[in-house]
């Protein structure tokens, strides 16, 4: 929660500075943010590689544990695909890329704004923040009317950290392991899937 607040502060500070100031001429904003993005992705990789608990879990729980992340991915794609019939002004590829943030708004929005542009980056930021908020607010209802997989799936990548407390409270502690695993898999996949989806056919 503390991190989300700091992130929001930086984002809003950026908007305010952008409203008030013009970037100095010849200031290579794009080159700088592209390199920060590369460093960011490298560091995400470092934290993944250093924390092998997730991989030990795979060994102990066989392949069945992959079914829930798979359901989340396929389900998200199908939902977004259905929406693409109504939202005609965003391409299917871009819609799926936004959906592929799975709630991991910080990384997905910066990758998408870097590849496609700021407009889709904003949509990705908001859509994935909303996914986290929806999960935090609706988990009690999901558990009551659907079951215990629904809130984990809805949380997407956040089921390993920000939405974990509410999931573990309403689903029971025994679901926190699968919740962390599910979130870890999606977190690892976000920086992989988005460039692949947007990269196909884009010459940049």
């Amino acid at each position, binding site marked *: 929660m503390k991190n989300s607040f700091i992130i929001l502060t930086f984002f809003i500070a950026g908007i*305010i500075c952008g409203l008030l100031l013009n970037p100095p001429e010849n200031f290579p904003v794009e080159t700088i943010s592209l390199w920060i993005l590369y460093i960011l992705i490298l560091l995400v*990789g470092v934290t993944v590689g*250093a924390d092998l608990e997730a991989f030990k879990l795979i060994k102990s729980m066989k392949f069945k544990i992959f079914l829930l992340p798979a359901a989340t991915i396929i389900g998200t794609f199908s939902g977004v695909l259905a929406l693409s019939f109504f939202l005609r002004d965003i391409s299917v590829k871009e819609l799926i890329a936004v959906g592929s943030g799975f709630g991991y708004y910080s990384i997905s929005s910066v990758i998408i704004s870097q590849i496609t542009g700021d407009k889709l980056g904003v949509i990705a930021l908001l859509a994935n923040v909303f996914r986290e908020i929806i999960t935090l607010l609706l988990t009690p209802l999901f558990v009551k009317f659907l*079951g215990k997989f629904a809130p984990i799936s809805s949380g997407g990548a956040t089921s390993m950290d920000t939405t974990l407390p509410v999931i573990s409270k309403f689903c029971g502690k025994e679901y926190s392991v699968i919740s962390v695993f599910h979130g870890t898999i999606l977190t690892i996949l976000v920086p992989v899937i988005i460039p692949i989806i947007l990269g196909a056919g884009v010459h940049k």
Partner: protein
Amino acid sequence: MFVILLFFISGILSGFILRKKKKLIKISENFLMVSIYLLLFFLGFGIGNNNELISSFHVLGLKALLISFAGVFGSIFLSTLLEKFIDKRNEK
């Protein structure tokens, strides 16, 4: 943009090799947060500096809300089916 994947994979490998060096991992976690802050500041700056984006912010927000609901609906539908399927198999 496959450069991104290259950086990601090299990150995982170096993280795995350096996993015992807790201090180094801690430092890279801190740098990770700083780079997220910086990039979101830049994203915000790009938005604030772009009149077209600012004036259409509410439209983008509505589209974003639709996308997240679509994604959530799809995934809870499928995961609930999965849960029922697993329960049924366990009953047998």
